[in-house]
C-alpha cells in the first residue's frame, strides 16, 4: 500500500502546457478519481505516475521515495488501460502470468497466483483462451487480473470502462468498487464519465486545463462547486445558468427577479452574476424563488420527465417526475419554482457565498 505524492509536477511540449505545476497527495488506500474534460491532462498525470511519461519538472514520490527517474516496472504499480492492452498472442493464463514471468518468479508460485486471481475474477473457465475469443467484459477482467496478480502498491486505471456498453459498465463499476474494498489498495482512476467519478471516488479531483479545479468528496464537490466550471461539469443534465444584474438586494434577469437569502447580502455581491439552478431543484409550483418560462419541448424517460424551456433567451432544463409533465405542451408558459440556488461571479466564474 502506498502514498503517492506529486510535487509541482508539470508537462510541457514546446509552448503547449499540458500540466502546470500541479501538486497532489494520494493517501494510502485511497480511491482517487481524476476527472475532467478531454485534454485536461488527467491521462498525462496518470502516465507520469506510472512512469510512462517523464515530467518536464517536479517530482513523483511513492511512499516518500523519489521515483521520478525510476522505470515503470520498478515502481511496483499496476495499470489497466482503456484498450486493455492484452497481449493478443498469449492465452488468458499467460497474460495474467506475464508480470510475474518477466520478474522470473517461481513457476509454482506463478501458477498458484494465476489460479487464485482467476478464481477471484471468475476467469477460471477462460484461462486457455486467447483475448480475441473473449467478450469486452471478460477482457476487462483479464486486464484487471494482470494488474492484481503481482499485488502492487497501487493501481492505476486509465478510463478502463469506456469501451464497454452501458449495462456492462455499471456492473464493472461495481466490481472495481468491490475490488477496492477487498484489497484496500491505493487506486488512481482516470475517467471523463461523471457517474464513475461520483460513484467510485473516495476523493474526486477535477482537472481543467492542466490545473486542479476542485477536489474533495464527490458529494461535497457536487453540492458546493467552487466554480461555474465544476458546477457545469458535474450533474446530468448540467446546472442551469441565468445571467442577472444586482440592484440593491435583488437580482434582475431577462424575465425574472430574485431576492437571494439575507445571509448572501452579508457578502457584497458583484454587479453581474450567474444564477445557477440544478435541474432537479426545479418544480412546477412557486417556491422561495420563481421564474417564468416558455416550454420548448418535453422528454419523458419513464421515471423522469425533462422539461426544456427558455427564460427570456436563456435555456433551462428541469428534471421532474414523469407524471407531472403530462399536461405540459410546447409553447405554453409556466412558472418554475425552486428553493436552492448557487451564485457565481459573472467575470471570474467563482462561486459566491450564498447557496440558498
Amino acid at each position, binding site marked *: 500500500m502506498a502514498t503517492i505524492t506529486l510535487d509541482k509536477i508539470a508537462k510541457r511540449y514546446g509552448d503547449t502546457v499540458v500540466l502546470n505545476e500541479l501538486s497532489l497527495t494520494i493517501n494510502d488506500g485511497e480511491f482517487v478519481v481524476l476527472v475532467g474534460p478531454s485534454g485536461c491532462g488527467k491521462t498525462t498525470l496518470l502516465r507520469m505516475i506510472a512512469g510512462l511519461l517523464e515530467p518536464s519538472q517536479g517530482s513523483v514520490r511513492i511512499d516518500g521515495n523519489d521515483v521520478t527517474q525510476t522505470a515503470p*516496472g520498478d515502481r511496483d504499480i499496476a495499470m489497466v488501460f482503456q484498450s486493455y492492452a492484452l497481449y493478443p498472442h498469449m492465452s488468458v493464463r499467460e497474460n495474467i502470468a506475464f508480470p510475474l514471468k518477466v520478474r522470473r518468479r517461481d513457476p509454482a508460485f506463478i501458477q498458484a497466483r494465476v489460479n487464485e486471481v482467476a478464481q477471484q475474477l471468475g476467469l477460471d473457465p477462460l484461462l486457455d483462451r486467447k483475448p480475441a475469443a473473449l467478450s469486452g467484459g471478460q477482457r476487462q477482467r483479464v486486464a484487471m487480473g494482470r494488474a492484481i496478480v503481482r499485488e502492487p502498491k497501487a493501481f492505476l486505471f486509465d478510463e478502463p470502462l469506456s469501451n464497454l456498453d452501458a449495462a456492462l459498465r455499471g456492473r464493472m463499476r461495481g466490481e472495481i468498487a468491490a475490488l477496492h474494498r477487498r484489497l484496500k489498495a491505493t487506486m488512481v482512476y482516470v475517467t471523463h464519465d461523471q457517474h464513475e467519478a461520483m460513484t467510485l471516488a473516495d476523493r474526486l479531483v477535477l482537472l481543467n486545463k492542466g490545473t486542479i479545479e476542485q477536489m474533495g468528496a464527490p458529494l461535497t464537490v457536487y453540492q458546493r462547486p467552487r466554480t461555474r466550471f465544476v458546477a457545469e461539469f458535474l450533474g446530468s443534465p448540467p446546472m442551469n445558468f441565468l445571467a442577472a444584474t444586482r440592484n440593491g438586494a435583488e437580482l434582475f434577469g431577462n424575465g425574472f427577479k430574485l431576492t437571494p437569502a439575507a445571509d448572501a447580502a452579508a457578502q457584497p455581491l458583484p454587479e453581474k452574476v450567474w444564477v445557477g439552478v440544478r435541474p432537479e431543484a426545479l418544480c412546477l409550483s412557486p417556491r422561495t424563488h420563481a421564474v417564468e418560462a416558455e416550454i420548448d419541448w418535453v422528454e419523458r424517460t419513464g421515471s423522469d420527465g425533462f422539461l426544456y424551456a427558455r427564460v427570456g433567451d436563456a435555456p433551462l432544463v428541469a428534471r421532474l417526475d414523469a407524471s407531472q409533465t403530462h399536461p405540459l405542451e410546447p409553447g405554453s408558459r409556466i412558472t418554475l419554482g425552486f428553493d436552492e440556488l448557487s451564485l457565481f461571479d459573472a467575470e471570474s466564474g467563482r462561486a459566491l457565498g450564498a447557496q440558498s
Partner: protein
Amino acid sequence: MSAVARGVALLCCFAALPAHAADSEVVVWHSYRAGEALALDAAVNDFRAQHPEIQIRVLAVPYGAYQQKLIAAIPGGHGPDLFIAAHDQLGDMVKRDLIDPVPEPLSAQQFLDETLAPLRGPDGKSWGWPMAFKTLVLFYRTDQVPEPPATTDALIATAEKLTGDGRFGLAYPLAEFYFHAPWFFGAGAELLTADANDVRFDSPAATRSGELLRLFAVEKKLVPSDANGALVTEMFNQGKAAMVVNGPWFIAELRPDLPYALTPLPILSANGTPAKPLSTIEALFLAKGRARPEVRALATFLVSDAGARRRAVGAGQPVANRALYDDPDLQNGPLPVFRKQLTNTVPMPTAPLTALVWEPLNEALRQIARGALSPERAFQEAAARVRLLNQPLPAEANPAPYVLVILLALAGVLTVALWRTPTGLLSRLVQARTAYAFLLPTAIGMTLLVGVPFLMGLGLGFFAFGPGEIRFVGFANFTSIIAAQEYPITHPLSFYFTMAVTVLWTFANVSLHLLLGFGLALLLTPSWLKGRALFRVLLILPWTIPNYITALIFKGLFNTQFGAINALLEAMGLPPVHWFDSFWPAFCANLTTNVWLGFPFMMVTVLGALQAIPPDLYDAARVDGASAIQRFFKVTLPQVGPALVPAVVLGTIWTFNMFNIVFLVSEGQPEGSTDILVTEAYRWAFVRNGRYGYAAAYSTIIFVILALYTVLTRRLLSARQGARS
C-alpha cells in the same frame, strides 16, 4: 510416333510464323544489323533496278530465334526463298532437309577457295553461295606499337614493354575459346577426332596452346584476366590495351579518330606455324524447293562482284569474291588483312558434338588463365566433361501406358467432378452468367499464358532432343536426374550438388534478408528519428531497380582487376580477392547482390507489421516490468511473426528461382558450382546441346520441390495456429 512427338515438341518450342509468301515474290531473310543490313538493301535495290518485274521482300529476323524460325517455317512452305546463315549450321540444315544445293557449279575464279570449301558437301556439290567470312586478326594502336609483331615471341616482347600501371600490352576475352582458337589450332591441336565422335583436345598440342595462355595471363600478366568484349573495346579505345585480337565487327566499335592498324595474327614461335583462328563463312542458302528462275537470278546477283562490292565498300564486309581484293578502292582498308589471315584459318567445325565442347573448353581456359590448373590437366578435365555430357539419348519408350494413365486420370477426374456436381448446375451457371462473363477474359488469359505453357513444359520433360531428333522417353529424364549416377554427388553437374547449393543459397539469402530487413525496420520506427520518411524511401530504392541492372552493376564491382571492391581492398592494403575463382567468394558475391536486392521487401513488410502493434502493448509491458529485450521477444516478435510468414514463403520461392543474379553475377563460376537449379536447367537447354527435355524435367522437379515446400509450410502454420486458438 516420332512424327507425333516432333509435332508436340515443335508446338512447345516455336511461336507463330509470318504468313506464306506469294509465289511471285522473292523473300530473303537475314539477321544483319546496321551497316551490313543497309549494304544488303543497297545490293537488292541494284537488282530491283535491273529487274523491276520481280517482287522482292527482305526481312531482317532477330538473330536470337533465327535458326528456330528457319526450322519451323521452311518445311511448312512459309519462310524465305533465300536466307543468309553461317556455314556451321549447314550440316544440321541438310539433315533437316531445309535447303537445296546451289543449282549451278560455282567458279573458283570468282570465289576464294577458303570460302567455297566449307560449303561443299561430301558429293562435291555446293550447298550455298559464299558471301563473306569472319575471322580474327590482330588490331594494334599505331601510337604505341611501332612495328606489328610477326611472331608470338615478338608479341610478348612488345606487350611486355607496354604493360604496367593499369595498362596491358594485349587484350582479348581469355576465357572464350573462340579467341584462344588461333593459338590452339596454330599449335596443331584438334577439336574432334576424324570421325567426329570424340574430342581430341587432351593432346600435347592443346597443352602447348595452354602454355602460351599461361605465359600471357599468369607468368607475364600481359593480358587482363577478367576482360569481356565490352571491356576490351573500352580499353583499346582508351589506350589501355595496345593490341587486341578481334574480328571485323570490332571496327564499328572503335573511335573514328583512333590511330590503329590491323595485321594478321603472328607466327607461333614454338613451332613456326602461323596462328590459325576459326573462320565462319556467311553464305546465301536456297530454301528447299524454291529454285525458281527469279530466285536464282537474285542469288547470282547478290554474290556477284557488283553485289559483293556494295557490302565490302558499304559495310567493310570481308567478302568472298576474289575480284574485290584487287579493287584499288579497298586496297588500303582492313579487307586485305582479313584476306591474308583467311589463308591461315580453320573453318568453324559443324559436327553435332561441337555444340558440347564450348562450355567445358571455356572453363578449361578460365582455369589455366588463373593458374588453378596446369594446361594439361585443364584440357583433360574439359575432355572428360564433354564425354560426360555426350551421353546417348535415352531409349525410346512406348507412350501407350503413359497415354493410358493420362486418359484414366482424366476420366477419373471427370467422373468425380460429375458425381460431386449438384443437380441444376447448368441453371446456376446461367443465373450467374454475368459474373462468369466478367471472369472469362482472365480465365482465357491465365489458361493461355500460364496453363498451356505449364502443361507443355510438363509434357516436354518426357521427350529427349538429339541433333535433328526428338523421341519419347517416358520417365528417363526424371530418373536420370534423380538417380544422378553419371556424376559423383560432389560434382557440380550432379542434381544433388546443385540442390544443396540452391538450398544453401535460399537459406542464406532469406536469413540475411530477414535479419537486415528487421533490423532496419526497427531502426526506422522510433518517432524521434529525423528524416524517417527519407530513409525509408532510400532503403526501398534497391528494390525498385530492375534486378538484372543491379546484377550487372555488382558484376562490375566484383571484377578482379577493374572492380571497385578490389580497388577498395587494395586501398586498405589488403590483397585483391579473385571473386569468381573459388566457390565461397563467388557464392558470397552472388549473396551480396541478392541481399542488396532482397532486404527492402522484408523491411517494408516488417515496418507495416510494426506499425500495426498498438503502442499500449509496449506501455503495458513496461508497467508489467518487461525489459527492452523482453519486450522485443515477448511483444514485438510474436506480433510481427504472423505477418512475416507469407513474406518468408514468398521470399524463399523467389530466391530459390533467382535466375538473374546467379546467371549474371557469378555465371555459375567456378565450374558451374555456384549454379542453382534454375540456371542449371537453363544450361541444359541452351548451352549443352539443346537438351530441352532434360531441362524441362529439371523445371518440373523444381516446381514439385516448391509446391511441396508451400504445402508443407501451410500445413505447419495451420497446425500451429490451431494449437494456439
